[in-house]
């Protein structure tokens, strides 16, 4: 068939272009704009080149926040992924209780972030919170506003409570798609429970688990609301994760230039880690990992 050339066709993608421009490109360019300029007020800006980037790269503050952020993401992945898979493996496969479990597990996913934060903020309070009061009564020193370890434990347990079901639901979907014949063959071959998991369930779940890990990584790496509501980044800077630090800098101190440079680097780090992760996983997959 002969190809019709009609330049007017470009008009047809115009609505999409405008939409994307307003929703993504223009806001992003504003940030880029801020990151290379400085101002002394009165809406007068002047060019500073990559100075802000250099400043941010040299600042301990950002590196510390990045370190805490990486630790946070690593810990919650290390807990949520195995726990989610474990829950999925032990869920009823069909019938009323299966649906019941699915609904119960979806509940935390439906709660808004700041509500989750508030719930745990109150739950953990030593004076009125059930958890904080009980721990205190048992003689365990627990106070997330003063003790770094308690603060970390609280935000990690909170995130595990909030998001493990996502991993579990995805893993469950993966498990459900395995035909019965695989389990029957495994019985015939006298495979152990571990071997069934290792050679049948895990390989068949790999695809959805990859998505689960990627989602959980990105989400946890960008987390803001819940820890902000619970600890406000404290005690000191102990739970000041990247986005909390960024907001402090941009809105608290109104250092727009450094904050913009910070944002761009933040964005690039997420992009880079996700890309590396995705590439490694798909490569493994193709090789028959």
């Amino acid at each position, binding site marked *: 068939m002969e190809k019709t050339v009609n330049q007017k066709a470009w008009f047809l993608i115009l609505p999409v272009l405008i939409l994307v421009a307003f929703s993504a490109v223009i806001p992003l360019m504003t940030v880029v704009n801020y990151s290379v300029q400085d101002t002394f007020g009165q809406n007068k800006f002047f060019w500073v080149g990559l100075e802000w980037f250099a400043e941010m790269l040299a600042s301990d503050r950002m590196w510390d926040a990045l370190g805490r952020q990486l630790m946070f993401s690593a810990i919650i992945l290390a807990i949520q992924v195995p726990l989610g898979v474990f829950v999925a493996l032990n869920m009823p496969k069909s019938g009323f209780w299966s649906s019941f479990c699915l609904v119960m597990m979806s509940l935390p996913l439906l709660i808004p972030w700041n509500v989750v934060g508030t719930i745990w903020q109150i739950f953990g309070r030593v004076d009125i919170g059930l958890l904080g009061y009980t721990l205190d009564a048992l003689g365990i020193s627990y106070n997330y506003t003063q003790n770094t370890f308690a603060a970390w434990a609280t935000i990690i347990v909170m995130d595990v409570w909030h998001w493990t079901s996502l991993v579990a639901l995805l893993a469950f979907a993966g498990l459900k798609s395995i035909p019965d014949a695989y389990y029957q063959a495994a019985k015939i071959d006298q495979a152990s429970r571990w071997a069934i998991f290792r050679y049948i369930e895990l390989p068949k779940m790999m695809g959805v688990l990859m998505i689960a890990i990627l989602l959980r990584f990105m989400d946890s790496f960008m987390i803001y609301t819940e820890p902000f509501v619970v600890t406000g980044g404290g005690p000191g800077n102990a739970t000041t994760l990247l986005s909390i630090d960024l907001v402090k800098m941009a809105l608290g101190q109104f250092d727009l230039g450094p904050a913009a440079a910070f944002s761009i680097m933040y964005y690039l780090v997420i992009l880079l880690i996700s890309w590396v992760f995705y590439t490694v996983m798909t490569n493994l997959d193709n090789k028959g*990992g």
Partner: protein
Amino acid sequence: MAKITLDNLAHSYSSKPKGEDDFALKELNHVWSDGEAYALLGSSGCGKSTLLNIISGLLHPSQGRILFDDVDVTQSSTADRNIAQVFQFPVVYDTMTVRDNLAFPLKNRGADPAYIAERVQQIGAMIGMEEQLDTRARGLTADAKQKISLGRGMVREDVNALLFDEPLTVIDPHMKWELRTQLKSLHHEFGHTMIYVTHDQTEALTFADKVVVMYDGRVVQIGTPQELFDKPQHTFVGYFIGSPGMNVMPATVDGNTAMVHGLPVDLGAGYAALAGKVEIGVRPEFVTLTDGAGLPVKVRRVEDVGRHKIVRAELFGSEINILAGEDQNIGPDMTHITFDPARVNVYVNDWLNEGEAA
């Protein structure tokens, strides 16, 4: 290797079966002799796979017992029964190499590594995958995967029985033939009790010493291919085995003669008065076209299949098939048919009635 006895066995998938119709497998008594190759033949949904899964222990029967060499194994697990089973669709362990796949059942049972290596090599050669032993199973084609499944089924030498559940469905015709031949030679070599489920009569007849025909949850006939051909015990066996299947027509029977639509047909035996639905069955091979004698037919169509011709004709409004020789000329004067009296079977309520010797 073992003799397998089914004692009063029946199975229903519903937990409170109300009547016979609720049973996927109706009451059954049968002994599978040690070292024989059986084919379990029947149309889809007739209970073949149910029976197979009960024998392998994947399913526990609602009633009755299963004995391996007179030991009751009804409640034993699949592993304890020491059975190998190959399924309709290939089941391979994706992340393992072909070699590890084949070795898996042996490793799980703690066999000696040197023996495993040797045995896997041997099975690899048997299924024609020696070259690919070290590739991963994931990327292979469906028939390669099914060959691995077959190999995994055959890798253990000490199994009580080898069960196949339509294993060649996904394999292309050329390879089918080759694998079936290999299964047969394997059977000759090791003498395992083999049960092969299929809905393909050619497959059943070429593979097995004895064919078990199932219909609607019931075993209707067990016999050699020859017996199934000559004396189908049930009209279903008549239809199902043979190409085309047996012609069955309603009749009344009196002594040595059957009356079909008021015309006499000679029988090879004498019969007492028969009650119920009476029919006679004649295989197309034993129907002869004539130009005068016998029952009147209208020839509708002649299909030349090479070795012989299949004549599709009409007898009193219902279809009848006739097998004619390749060189027989079928002209417009061929208006009647006769039956070979010794080959006319009489059925009462679908079951064969042999009558008294003539």
